[in-house]
């Protein structure tokens, strides 16, 4: 593949990478190198893990042309379950985390099941389950902050592998596995086929119901991983956990090049886009900007990315018409 073709096919990834690198360098330069200090770098990378994983959790549902509005609520409940089991019931860490992870997966499976059975769009179903789960989360945590769990958990969360935070490594590894799932397994392909054209998928002998169920369940499992990362990297769990996940979960995949219509995933794009969003966060801290600036910036970036990708789509469609004429 020559450079031109590479650029055309990977335009989103390349420009995002460029933005990320430039933004990073700009921040390094304007902060007189503070960002390169061990602690800042560590902080930057550690808090990149959750946006990546929840971005993936949203991406797998976008891949079938649906949305999961309950990403935050599922994560909040899952983390709360883990915390309550450890603090109030003295479960061993591994068991508490496993149960929390499985319950997030089950919540995803329930979403998928409801979508398939009712034939309603995931938007409506997850809007419903989100509300129910938020209620459940408040019941579990109330107004407390739960932090009475064994110290080995935050220790685990602070571990490094080859200089990188362990939890970031987990997030990246999850992304790599997901990427293999979609490109190299027949199940992943079928899920994408359902998202690409459900009618054609059905006529090709693919069960769309199964694809929808798998996508939502997978989304739940990814939320479970995000909850594990959260509980091991934060000092305590309260009812605000997951509250700011929803916008973030859409921002990364959409900026990263995933189509709302379904049929595509963009793992690398989503990861880098999560990095770009993190940079905005860092910039805020660096220059003590108003927190609203972050929301504002991310919102504008999401809007302009969607608008740009729509423009690109139209241009390629016109080119497509042209090529058809040539054929």
């Amino acid at each position: 593949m020559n450079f031109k073709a590479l650029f055309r096919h990977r335009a989103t990834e390349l420009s995002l990478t460029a933005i990320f690198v430039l933004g990073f360098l700009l921040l390094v330069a304007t902060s007189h190198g503070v960002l390169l200090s061990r602690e800042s770098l560590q902080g930057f990378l550690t808090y990149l893990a959750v946006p990546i994983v929840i971005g993936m959790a949203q991406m797998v549902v976008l891949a079938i042309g649906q949305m999961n509005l309950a990403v935050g609520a599922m994560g909040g409940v899952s983390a709360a379950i883990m915390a309550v089991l450890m603090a109030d019931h003295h479960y061993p860490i591994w068991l508490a985390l496993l149960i929390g992870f499985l319950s997030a997966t089950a919540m995803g499976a329930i979403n998928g099941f409801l979508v398939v059975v009712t034939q309603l769009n995931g938007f409506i179903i997850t809007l419903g389950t989100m509300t129910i789960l938020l209620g459940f989360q408040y019941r579990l945590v109330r107004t407390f902050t739960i932090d009475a769990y064994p110290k080995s958990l935050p220790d685990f969360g602070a571990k490094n592998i080859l200089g990188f935070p362990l939890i970031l490594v987990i997030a990246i590894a999850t992304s790599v596995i997901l990427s293999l799932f979609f490109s190299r397994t027949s199940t992943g392909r079928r899920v994408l086929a359902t998202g690409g054209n459900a009618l054609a998928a059905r006529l090709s002998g693919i069960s769309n119901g199964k694809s929808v169920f798998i996508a939502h369940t997978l989304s739940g499992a990814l939320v479970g991983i995000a909850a594990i990362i959260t509980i091991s990297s934060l000092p305590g769990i309260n009812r605000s956990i997951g509250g700011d996940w929803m916008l973030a979960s859409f921002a990364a995949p959409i900026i990263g090049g995933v189509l709302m219509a379904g049929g595509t995933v963009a793992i690398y794009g989503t990861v880098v886009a999560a990095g770009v969003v993190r940079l905005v966060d860092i910039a805020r801290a660096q220059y003590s900007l108003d927190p609203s600036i972050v929301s504002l910036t991310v919102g504008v970036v999401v809007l302009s990315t969607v608008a740009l990708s729509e423009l690109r789509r139209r241009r390629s469609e016109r080119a497509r018409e042209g090529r058809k004429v040539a054929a």
Partner: protein
Amino acid sequence: MNTELRIEKVSKSFPGVKALNEVNLIMKGGSVHALLGENGAGKSTLIKIITGVYRADSGVLKTNGEEKFFNSPVEATDAGIAVVHQERNLIPEFSVEENITLHHPPTKFGIVDRAERTRLARQALETLGFDIDLNERVKNLSVAQMQLVEIAKALVTNAQIILLDEPTASITSGETIKLFDVIKRLKESGTAVLFVSHKLEEVYEICDTVTVLRDGESILESKPLSEYKQGEIVDAMVGRHLADRKVELRKVNRSVEPVMQLTDIHTALGHEKISMSLYPGEVLGMYGLVGAGRSELARSVLGLHGISSGELKLNGQVVEIKSLRDALHKHRIGYVTENRKEEGLFLDFPVRKNISVTILSKILKKLGVISFQEEDSVSTKYVDRLGIKVVDNNQLAGTLSGGNQQKVSVSKWLAADTKILIIDEPTVGVDVRTKASFHELIVELANEGLSIILISSDLAEMISLADRILVMRDYQLVGDLDNSKDYTTMSRGIMTAIHSA
């Protein structure tokens, strides 16, 4: 003054390709003008320029003497130009009458006048002699019914210039006759009609003048049609002499067990007492008017809709097919849909993935990982075998021409090694040359032992391809004819079956 539309030296380029090169065309009121050419010759581009969808790079468009390109379809409609596009432009969730009156819904005091709307829509449909519930949502209609609604939509605008882009591609001969009556009446009332079709018999029946496009150039420009023989027109279109395909009678052994046998099948959709047999290596034709229930029968048998009673045997075994997945993986039956864009292809996926979609579980390496190598070799095999024109098999299916898309949609079933293939209207909207290669392919596949059920509304195609022709009317079989492949006797036989009974 007389209606006239003039196109002078119109050119249009798309990135990397010259779609139209100094094309000329003159349409006059009271005359039907044929616009002919292979797929990709530039016909649709020209129509889109006339109607303001595309902007020409250079040239002149004169409507009744006024020199002006339209900036949008709305402007063109307001100037008295109506168009029936090849791709349907209907709103699926709207009713038939809402769609027909979409451009200018009749209003009274600023709100839609429903009574008037119904009257207008009914009038248009009556002109077409087409009976349908005006309140039915368009999404529930068949392809042919949609096409007729699209034509009715053009009629209500009282346009002086009507452009028909393949209006007969998906309607039956009966409906075509009615449409031609309408065109004749329009012509008598002084309307200028542009008629695009791949069916030359129809063109000769209805058209007065002709323009032929080839690779974006006008080879014949607004010539009287009567001065040209059919062969000359085809030569102008394809640029070389196409030898007439030999029509051969094939031998099918019907003393063996049928591969598929239906006995007294009734379906939830209303089929009654359907009994038929398909023999190994046979091309079994299914002819019928639109709405006769042919596709619906195929879909019912394949498990998409239910079978309420009756017996289905495959290779002598009574079976029940619950879903298309069953049909494909357990019984090796494939179904090439008539709506290739909507149901046959993943337009945003590469050709490679479109072909491998039916065999994903068969091209796995260890650990359940898809072997790209095998996927590549399988798809390349069918791209070569069917002569699909692609840059490479990573080209997106949506960027292929209609005929090539159809070939991709067939490839996925061949890749899955199906034993029975149901092919539904394979050559709708496909040009002469691709059509011929498609016909050759069908015969070739049957000769290799594939058993084929061919559903087609194209009588000539049916008679030249099928070994036996079943005729369906109102969800019942009304004829079962051995095909002598003689057009005159066979067409008479089929029509008798449809209209008697």
